[in-house]
């Protein structure tokens, strides 16, 4: 019972984990991206169609990354080069994503592919209780574990990561030190968007191997809230994503057990808990030292430098 629940937790949490990691990369560079929901949909459709036409799941994942990379570059162009309002640009990206995937996805509805299958890691998958949940999963889930580490490594052990963090904290100072603010911000927004796209592709290639209109169902927004819960750290993003995976898994389990509680009420739980977690983590942020990037949400113009 616990094993099944844990397994479902990891599977439900993975798309949110990819999306949260992508959003963290964006925000570390100082750019708020509210386009996550739209990017997930674009990634889901791109991944599904590429896999359908090529027959290869790897091609699907790469396509999801590339297409959302391009979609994210619109947000980057508006917010970084043209110094436009980040909130409105992100909302525009979400609306565009919802609409364009409905339009181009119409012909893909009802088609099926062979999705990602489980690959047990010998030895590790034999560990009682957690073994099956973490080491008898598909390749994308293993990739998400790796990505959590890679994001941390990138930010704290590479010069490029330092550059991204500095343009997010204090763009004027970073500019003085010779970091190109626009280059690092553009890089973070596009690459971050690409990983959000892989999160979307997880939905259409692994969770349910098909395309359904609007299949992200608010997960992108949950990811945006989880960035604050995670305090912009990739390890805590993992914790947050599985917390929500757990709530979703439990809610589905309740429904399967045939409870008398309405399914509609149970479906509210993830959204309700996201708000609750957001309140608690914002409250904590106010009291302790804030991990929020200082330059978050502010466009940078060299002429404004003091």
């Amino acid at each position, binding site marked *: 019972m616990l094993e099944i629940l844990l397994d479902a937790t990891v599977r439900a949490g993975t798309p949110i984990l990819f999306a949260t990691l992508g959003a963290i990369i964006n925000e570390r560079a100082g750019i708020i991206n509210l386009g996550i929901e739209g990017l997930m949909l674009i990634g889901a459709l791109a991944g599904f169609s590429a896999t359908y036409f090529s027959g290869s799941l790897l091609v699907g994942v790469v396509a999801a990354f590339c297409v959302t990379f391009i979609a994210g570059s619109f947000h980057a162009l508006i917010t970084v080069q043209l110094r436009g309002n980040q909130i409105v640009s992100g909302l525009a*990206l979400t609306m565009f994503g*919802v609409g364009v995937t409905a339009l181009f996805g119409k012909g893909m509805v009802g088609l099926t592919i062979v999705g990602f299958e489980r690959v047990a890691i010998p030895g590790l998958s034999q560990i009682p209780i957690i073994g099956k949940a973490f080491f008898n999963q598909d390749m994308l889930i293993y990739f998400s574990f790796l990505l959590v580490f890679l994001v941390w490594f990138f930010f704290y052990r590479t010069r490029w990561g330092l550059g991204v963090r500095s343009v997010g904290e204090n763009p004027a100072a970073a500019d003085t030190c010779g970091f190109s603010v626009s280059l690092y911000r553009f890089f973070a927004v596009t690459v971050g968007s690409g990983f959000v796209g892989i999160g979307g592709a997880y939905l259409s290639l692994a969770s349910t191997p098909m395309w359904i209109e609007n299949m992200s169902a608010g997960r992108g927004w949950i990811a945006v809230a989880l960035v604050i819960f995670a305090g912009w750290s990739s390890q805590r993003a993992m914790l947050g994503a599985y917390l929500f995976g757990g709530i979703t898994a439990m809610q589905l389990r309740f429904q399967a057990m045939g409870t008398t509680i309405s399914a509609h009420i149970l479906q509210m739980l993830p959204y309700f808990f996201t708000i609750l977690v957001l309140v608690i983590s914002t409250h904590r942020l106010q009291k302790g030292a804030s991990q929020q990037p200082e330059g978050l949400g502010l466009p940078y113009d060299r002429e404004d430098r003091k």
Partner: protein
Amino acid sequence: MKLVIERREISSALLRFSAPVASIGIALFVAGFLLLASGVSPLAAYREIIIEALGSVYGLSETLVKTTPLIFAGLGVSLAFRMQIWNIGAEGQIYVGAMGATWVALFSGIQNHWMMMVAMFFAAFFCGGLWAGVAGFLRARWQVNEVIVTLLMNYIAILWVDYLIYGPWKDPKGFNFPLTAQFSDTARLAEYFNTRMHSGFFLALFCALVLYLFIERTVWGYEIKVIGSNQKAAQYAGMNTGLAIFFVLFLSGAIAGIAGFSEVAGLQHRLQHGISPGYGYTAIIIAWLAKRSAIGVVIVSFLMGVLLVGGDSLQLLWQLPVAFVYAFQGLILFFLLASDFFIIYRVKLIKGGAHA
């Protein structure tokens, strides 16, 4: 040759007017390629939109039917914009507003038409207001991001209405469809010219006027504007910014909630799924395009109404999904943001200027 970006000293009125018009034009142009890619001729589609939405009395009345909730929701969102507060939750506020009005219509037992209308109006007003007020309270008390809270509450509101119409409020005589019972005539707004157009439209125009007077002619409106332009200065001047944030989000949600009243009392005459097909999201574009002016909200709502009616007919003619309209709206926003840049800055080519 070198590209130089410099700030304009003044941006002419002509430029400020032509930029949004140009962005809609470019958005139409780019959306044309999306239409082409899905096998529809853009010119035929745009012609169809204009003829369907404006070419007949019936079409015009349908456009006004769609304009009505957009005006309410757009006014609500733009009021919050005034104070640099983001209300992305108008969609959910419409749903809870409709829920409040429906509760009065079905269960209050009021017999008098006017009393019924007033009671339904205020039920929608307070339900929408309290729904947004939650985000307002959290923002004012603990600085919780109102964008995320208002947005997530949309999902909760829609699920809550689903719960009611699939469960306790389901019409016992409704053959098990997820609908409430139909309202009696006491709980319906007047309709005109044998069309679906109803008096909610005039209520929306009246609301726009009241809101305009509220912002421009009262002390509260003045405070909202001051807090919106400089919160620190407002605090030094002794204004209670926390209370103002709560109050503005409450009022913003309340106005969006009236759209719910107008939809159930004027058009649907019952509560059902999809009472709003995304009016609350379109409202964000309306508020941004209207640059916070109440009159602007009315004009832009009408334009978006044309687009929605046209979008419906594209769906019937070419089976294009309704959500296509969102793609178009997203494009308008993108180009609008890009055009803002060219209003503030000037891009110049300078010859040979490595040291320029």
